[in-house]
């Protein structure tokens, strides 16, 4: 019985940790859907956003104002990226754009560190990383309050984004651009505004993801490496699918936790560092477009 409960705990912890991966992956999907660009810089944007947020707070700016300020900053980043990086590289190959976003990642993480320094900072969101007493008492499960909050925030964010895509004019425009940029432009949908919107949304998602990760693990450079794990999430879920990002994140979260707890000890632990990537390879061999991917990637 204890073992079953423990297993549930592990799976639940994995699911909730997985929502954090989903949050990072969500930013990738937004940009990929609209512009077919793999934004490698999403992880760096997470780091950049949350470090700026904590930095603003350290300057004595209250929580809400710092949040708004960071959102504005991320919009500015999105604007600059669109103007300075993506526009000159329009119609280039996907590999070129990918390399450009790797460059962008280094610019962003370097800038953040140059301005705010490299020391690890704590971020207190008012919810601690400790088990919720009520659940622990009644069900005997230890579930972290922070994890639950991350799950709720992620779910809310996804619902908002999904509604926005479905019912707003901007959302419709975005789907049109995603479907066929040329046709969308020819009927007068402002591509530039759509791109700006998408990058801003990705920046916003990055900030939220960064705050969750930062509250859990501290605001530090390691966030960039953590965000790399969003890549296998995307491969499993499919690059162009928001539900895919969610499910992929949950799968990665659960698999790496279960493997780490049950298989890890016999190898001295630490397998969660590579297990998601190896899982992604198997997915690539079995189903290269991912679980929910629409487009079948070019066969080679």
């Amino acid at each position, binding site marked *: 019985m204890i073992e079953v409960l423990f297993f549930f705990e592990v799976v639940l912890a994995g699911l909730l940790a997985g929502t954090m991966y989903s949050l990072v992956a969500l930013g990738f999907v937004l940009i990929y859907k609209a512009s077919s660009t*793999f934004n*490698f810089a999403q992880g760096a944007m997470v780091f950049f956003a949350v470090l700026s947020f904590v930095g603003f707070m350290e300057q004595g700016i209250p929580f809400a104002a710092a949040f708004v300020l960071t959102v504005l900053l991320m919009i500015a980043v999105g604007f600059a990226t669109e103007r*300075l*990086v993506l526009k*000159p*590289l329009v119609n*280039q190959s*996907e*590999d*070129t754009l*990918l*390399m*450009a976003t*790797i*460059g*962008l*990642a*280094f*610019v*962003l*993480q*370097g*800038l*953040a*560190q*140059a301005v705010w*320094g*490299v020391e690890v900072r704590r971020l207190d969101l008012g919810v601690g990383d400790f088990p919720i007493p009520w659940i622990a008492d009644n069900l005997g499960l230890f579930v972290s309050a922070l994890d639950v909050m991350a799950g709720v925030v992620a779910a809310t964010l996804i619902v908002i984004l999904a509604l926005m895509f479905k019912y707003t004019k901007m959302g419709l425009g975005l789907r049109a651009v995603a479907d066929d940029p040329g046709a969308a432009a020819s009927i007068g949908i402002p591509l530039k505004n759509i791109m700006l919107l998408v990058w801003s949304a990705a920046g916003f998602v990055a900030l939220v993801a960064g705050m969750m990760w930062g509250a859990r693990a501290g605001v530090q450079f390691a966030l960039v*490496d953590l965000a*790399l794990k969003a*890549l*296998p999430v995307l*491969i499993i879920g499919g*690059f162009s699918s928001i539900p895919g990002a969610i499910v992929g994140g949950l799968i990665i979260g659960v698999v790496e936790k279960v493997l780490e707890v049950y298989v890890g000890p016999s*190898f*001295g*632990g*630490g*397998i969660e*560092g*590579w297990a998601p*990537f*190896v899982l*992604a*390879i198997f997915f*690539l*061999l079995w189903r*290269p477009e991912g679980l929910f991917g629409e487009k079948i*990637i*070019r*066969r*080679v």
Partner: protein
Amino acid sequence: MTSKPATSPFARGDITNFAVLMTLAFLVIPLTIPNGYWYSSILIPWLCLALAAIGQQIVMGYAGQLALGAAGFMAAGAFACFNIELRIPWMPFGGSLILSGLIAAAFGVLFGLPSLRVRGIYLMVATLASQFFIIWMIDKFGWFKNYDTSGIITAQDIVIFGYAFTAPLQMYLVVLVVVTLLTILAINMTRGSVGRNWMAVRDMDIAAESMGISLLRTKLQAFAISAFYCGVAGALFAFTYLKSLEPVAFDIKLSFQILFMVILGGLGTISGAFIGAAFILLFPVVLNTVGNVWFHGMVDATVISAVEQVVFGALIILFLIYEPLGMAKLWENIRARMRSRSVPKAEVPRQQAS
């Protein structure tokens, strides 16, 4: 000049350049630079990293496969070399190097398999798996580190024909010989049928396949040879530059650096690997010196390393936009301009050399 304009792949100019470079590297530098610092901190790491960059260049610049795991293969090579030296004492150092390269190549083939089905970022994720997996494997299985618990293992001395190469200059010569041989080999491969197959696959894989080039063989060959170069480079890097073996030295940061060397140096050129490696290695040194001399150490070291990241990232974007062929192409442009200036207009050969 009375010679005819160059038409063969190995022009007289190339041979002259080669002779000049070799004289410089084997005679002038050893005779004029007595200072150990230059060898142990600049020349040796430069040559080692350039060799790894050639490996990255082969898989990415020539075969067009976006891979990001060079440091993992370097780690495989380094630890393979350590274990071969440790466990097979009669093996000559050259043999150890070749074996290390072959072991790294085996990993290269294994993790290159996904390239048969995917490309772009998909492939990048697959190769990242190799990076994380190899480092973890070395870290967690004590056998690879000879059950050393301190975390840092001292590399054995390089002994060739009973003579220990331990001084900076001697190690430089060892590295130089290996790098020279492998560079010549790489140039020949890229100019021969092997390299042409790679480039055909890079430029249009379907056309290449329909012309009878086996994608399977060509891609795996590129991954294997690339990993071989990285493996040998890793072994040399650990034995002559780090002089120790620790998996941390081969983390993802090094993989990114090697990727940057290739992109900035110029995709699809061997010289680009050397230029890129020199830039990535020297720029931080220059930046630190500037920080110390101009700002008198007032600038924090962490700020300098952050600025370094910004500059590398920005340069990548700038080069991709303005000169996708990298610094090697810039250098060629400068040379072409100087040549056309020094020779009167009428005598400029109209025939294109390449």
